[in-house]
């Protein structure tokens, strides 16, 4: 079997597994749907963090922005948003199937575009910031967004919005949102796979390796940075819109802008799998989500402490991640040719540097 055939087989198996999952494990549809959301998180974080070397701690902002944008559009098409949110879901508002689906589709599309526009606007503001300033600045934006939405009564404030109810059976609803999550994750992966085969990847890798030199070589760094962030924001907006509808109720601090949960998970998952690779985030997200779902409830409140410890251990002792480690161990399997002399020379150089 050639490498290409093997790859096709792998993709086929994943697609098949993804499609069959909700029918084989109907009780775990929600958890598996969240797994796809997590994979999307890790992949979009890696565009900036792994490939471009800009470590954002606030990417979750686009998730929340997409979620709220979608909610406003779904409701605003047929009702007054202010009246709807001030009822706090106490008044049951029914949407006909036609209204519901139209609102959902328009909402998802619009939230993707709105998130991307936000990325362009914030890009102009924060991309002069380098290194730690960038990370802290983006973290600040995400925290501020949660606080501001929480104080904004028109959007339901701190008590949130109950999303329009799905006009149909609960099982059909679960499957619909499962396939939306699955589809968005697969679309993100395929898009990035194509994108990473172009000049674009070389340009953003050049920014990661040495931004000043890249600029001197004629790479229009600001444009590339903004485009990369908009791509991440576009897909995060979609996933926010889907996730908001899937959970049925949205609220600023825990669901829309959860900086210390999802916002940190995406960084950790990408690092765990190996940042700067296409498959690393997917691997890291899958591993993290499975471990989390299995052990979380048994840790009795200590899970968050364990999360912090996991971050420390991952960053301090195992920064290259699983795929990075595998690449170092078996470089031939990844198509990296190692010249015996240069590799020993490298090692000597590295040990001298240490």
């Amino acid at each position, binding site marked *: 079997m050639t490498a290409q055939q093997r790859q096709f087989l792998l993709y086929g198996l994943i697609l098949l597994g993804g499609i069959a999952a909700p029918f084989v494990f109907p009780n775990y549809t929600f958890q598996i749907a969240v797994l796809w959301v997590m994979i999307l998180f890790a992949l979009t974080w890696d565009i900036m963090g792994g490939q471009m070397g800009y470590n954002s701690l606030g990417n979750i902002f686009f998730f929340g922005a997409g979620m709220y944008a979608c909610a406003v559009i779904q409701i605003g098409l047929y009702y007054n948003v202010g009246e709807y949110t001030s009822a706090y879901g106490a008044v049951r508002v029914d949407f006909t199937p036609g209204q519901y689906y139209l609102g959902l589709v328009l909402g998802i599309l619009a939230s993707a575009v709105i998130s991307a526009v936000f990325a362009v606007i914030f890009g102009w503001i924060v991309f*002069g910031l380098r290194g730690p300033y960038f990370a*802290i600045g983006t973290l*600040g934006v995400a925290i501020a967004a949660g*606080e501001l939405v929480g*104080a904004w009564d028109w959007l339901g404030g701190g008590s949130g919005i109950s999303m329009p109810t799905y006009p149909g059976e609960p099982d059909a609803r679960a499957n619909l949102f499962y396939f939306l999550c699955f589809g968005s994750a697969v679309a993100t992966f395929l898009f990035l796979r194509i994108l990473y085969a172009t000049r674009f990847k070389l340009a953003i890798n050049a920014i990661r390796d040495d931004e000043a030199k890249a600029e001197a070589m004629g790479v229009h760094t600001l444009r590339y940075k903004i485009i990369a962030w908009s791509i991440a924001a576009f897909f995060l907006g979609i996933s926010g819109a889907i996730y908001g509808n899937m959970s049925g109720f949205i609220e600023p601090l825990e669901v829309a802008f959860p900086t210390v949960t999802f916002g940190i998970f995406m960084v950790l998952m990408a690092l765990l799998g190996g940042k700067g690779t296409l498959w690393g985030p997917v691997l890291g997200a899958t591993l993290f989500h499975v471990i989390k779902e299995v052990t979380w409830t048994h840790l009795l409140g200590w899970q968050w402490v364990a999360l*912090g410890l996991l971050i420390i251990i991952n*960053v301090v002792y195992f920064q290259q991640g699983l795929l990075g480690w595998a690449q170092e161990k078996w470089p031939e399997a990844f198509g990296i040719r190692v010249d015996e002399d240069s590799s020993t020379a490298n090692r000597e150089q590295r040990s001298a540097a240490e």
Partner: protein
Amino acid sequence: MFDNLSLLGLAPVFNIQLLLDGLFIGAIFALAAYGLALVWGVMNVKNLAQGDFVIMGGYIAYSLAELGIHPIFGLPVAVVVMFAFGWAVYVLVIRRVIDRDLFTSLLATFGIAIVVQQTLNLIYGPEVKIAESGFAIRSALDNQLTVADIKLVSFAMAAALAIAVVIFMKRSRMGQAIRATAQDPRAAKIMGIDTDRVYAFTFSLNAAICGAAGVLIAMIWVIQPFYGITHSIRSFVIVTAAGFGNLPGVIIAGLGLGVAEQYSGFVMGAEFQQATVVGLLVAVLVWRQIQQSRIRQVVQ
């Protein structure tokens, strides 16, 4: 949203009240920010766990108060405990990230922050706590202006601590070694300074300063396990605005931030207080960026 704005014009005494409260709290912000500037300048580590160290100090004072010991005596206890804690954190984590890229130290300290805040949450619960000092509250101008004695005491203690740290940095052997390492670690090493020990001491000193600041915060304000991140952001705002190695700048920025927060809390409502801090952070970062781009143009 701006309901109280007219009140400020009608009753000028409110301004004095806000200004005083802002200065009292701002002095403590400046203290914590000075610790951050120290670690940042000497070790080039951006400590995102800064605010959580502060909150940890606050809980030490709170625990002592629960045992019947006056929280003011918590100050030396917090300094000693946090110094030891800082040393342990340095040996276990910081030592290994010190020469790595900037994001590594940032994320590692963020991990420490999560561990600290979640552990405090498990031990003390998520309620807002205060360490009661039991001091009297003075009032002036027909009870329109109130100043708690504890705020005056804490202001004096913050000032005394800051002066002690400054004298320590100027006069003592260790202080000189820290400053030498900040200037040029390699040269310092050649001159026989054990830089690893200097780094450990600097980080522990920072933790101790934070612990002391936390004791004061617990006495004049409130503490809660998850307030740490806001304190970290405050420290970053102050240090970024002032630039490190600029002690007067840190003091002015700290006091200014305290006053700005009191005003925004009064005018827009308490729920905007955190948003104000973060908004100021973004504003300061943007301002720095404009400044830098001007420098770049001059160079070009």
